[in-house]
């Protein structure tokens, strides 16, 4: 089973995230970054599948030099090798262009050894559109089973459990397929000391757009099919009235709701 896990290096959600006012893109230079928390679940699940059988886990990221940290963390967790697509032209790419670069990189990985499974987290924690996995499947012509809370890979198929609003579904796709996972699926491991040492010797390939046969005009801010016109910081919410419950907290709460016509 050869698995490619797509991971993203994102600004830390605990930090003050903002935009670069020169081009309205996410500010990635002045905010500490890390492997998107939601991608750790995909790395963990891929490792579990390979550990239960055989095969390799390749982690793939598209991003600037700093994004190497996302690969490093994944390798420390136990992934076998990394692929880092880094090209100045990629800066400002939207989901459409990102999915193009990922798709071409996966095709190149698959040219050596066929890829059985492409795995992703449910969304990034920065852009958080949650559409790249599906776009990637569309570009690769793969079936996609998304938002898996459980995953079973068996011979030629992947079966997931998905918790919907009105039902819990079991969904099956024939391999090769793309699977995105939720934070319900597992508990990602922490890298062990051994894992951290071993990661230093693991191979990481660096590819440019030219290596993938992608023209620079197809990516980046100028090629984006949407444009951010403006961004404004939401005014901080001013703290309202806080009361201590002295036996009448519930009454006061009900009174507030009444005054504001919620009752």
């Amino acid at each position, binding site marked *: 089973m050869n698995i490619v896990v797509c991971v993203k290096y994102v600004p830390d*959600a605990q930090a003050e*995230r903002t935009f670069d006012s020169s081009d309205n893109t996410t500010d990635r230079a002045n905010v500490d970054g890390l492997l998107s928390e939601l991608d750790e679940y995909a790395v963990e699940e891929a490792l579990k599948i390979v550990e239960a059988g055989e095969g390799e886990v390749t982690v793939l990221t598209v991003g600037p030099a700093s994004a190497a940290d996302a690969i490093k963390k994944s390798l420390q967790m136990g992934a076998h090798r990394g692929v880092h697509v880094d090209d100045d032209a990629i800066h400002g790419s939207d989901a459409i262009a990102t999915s193009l670069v990922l798709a071409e990189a996966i095709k190149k990985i698959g040219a050596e050894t066929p890829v059985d499974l492409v795995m992703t987290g449910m969304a990034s924690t920065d852009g958080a559109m949650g*559409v790249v996995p599906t776009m990637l499947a*569309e570009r690769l012509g793969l079936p996609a089973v998304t938002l898996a809370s459980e995953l079973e890979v068996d011979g030629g198929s992947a079966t997931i459990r998905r*918790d919907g609003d009105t039902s819990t579904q*079991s969904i099956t796709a024939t391999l090769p397929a793309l699977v995105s996972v939720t934070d319900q699926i597992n508990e990602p491991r922490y890298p062990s000391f051994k894992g951290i040492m071993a990661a230093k010797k693991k191979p990481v390939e660096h590819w440019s757009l030219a290596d993938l046969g992608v023209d620079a005009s197809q990516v980046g801010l100028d090629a984006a*099919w949407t444009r951010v*016109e403006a961004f404004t910081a939401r005014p901080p919410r001013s703290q309202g009235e806080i009361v201590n419950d002295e036996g009448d907290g519930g009454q006061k709460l009900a009174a507030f709701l009444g005054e504001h016509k919620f009752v």
Partner: protein
Amino acid sequence: MAEVLVLVDHVEGKVRKTTAELLTIARRLGEPSAVFVGAGFDAAKDSLAKYGAEKIYHVEGDVLDYLVVPQAELLAQLVASTSPAAVLVPSSPEGKEIAARLAVKTESGLITDAVDVQAGEGGGVATTQSVFAGGYTVSATVTKGTPIITVKPNSATPEEVSGAAVDEVVDFTVSDNAKGAKIASSKPKEVSGRPELSEAAIVVSGGRGTAGDFSKVEEFADSLGAAVGASRAAVDAGWYPHASQVGQTGKQVSPQLYVACGISGAIQHRAGMQTSKTIIAVNKDNEAPIFELVDFGVVGDLFAVLPQATEAINAAKG
């Protein structure tokens, strides 16, 4: 005037409120055309007409057995045949997948999770999104192809405008390529009788402070006719179903009123509720970060505060 395609969200023909909102938004951009897939067309027709659908494209058959791909194929076919001004899809997980595939198929720009959509000044479509856990508001436009927008619930007030609702059956065949993933089985959830979380005007959520007992949270929610949500801590502990999780990896809600009970208010939770109009918290810990956001807060034990409030509200209602 150009058509605006609205993908109808329904359960067996019972049209959800989000669709009425989308039809209302569509009217700002052009002539609303509903796209209906699945069973229950006759039941849906009247409510689609009531909110201004001029046309209803509809397909019956096995389209829904194969998840989202056939719906994306159908919309791509309709985009080609009708050259719409925009395609509006609900911002549900399925809606976003359909929109993502449609964007690639039609080489069109996609904007997700819009909280407002208006006609652009020089034509086109101007959207508003809330990003970085509600910390920023972004206005954006689509610059290529047909604008494809996924719209969050509660982004418009549905307006009743009578539409012609001309029925157009679409000749559509699911491609073999779309049949790679299939729903093997589906187990319906128990019906709570409460409003749906992402559409509700009032949401009451419980967290770690409930210690697993949601009864007081539910009784309080019922006194307000509210939906019940849960923090990730409560869901991870198995106290409440995942479908009720509010936060970054659960539902993002934007109700008129959000009441957080025994929830500390980590950034991941705030990402799911920060855009609520009015926020109330009940928490024993006066240092809980949730209090930074609130319009009204009670520092106290939810097991004392909520029942007292519930009783007072029920008494006031008579």
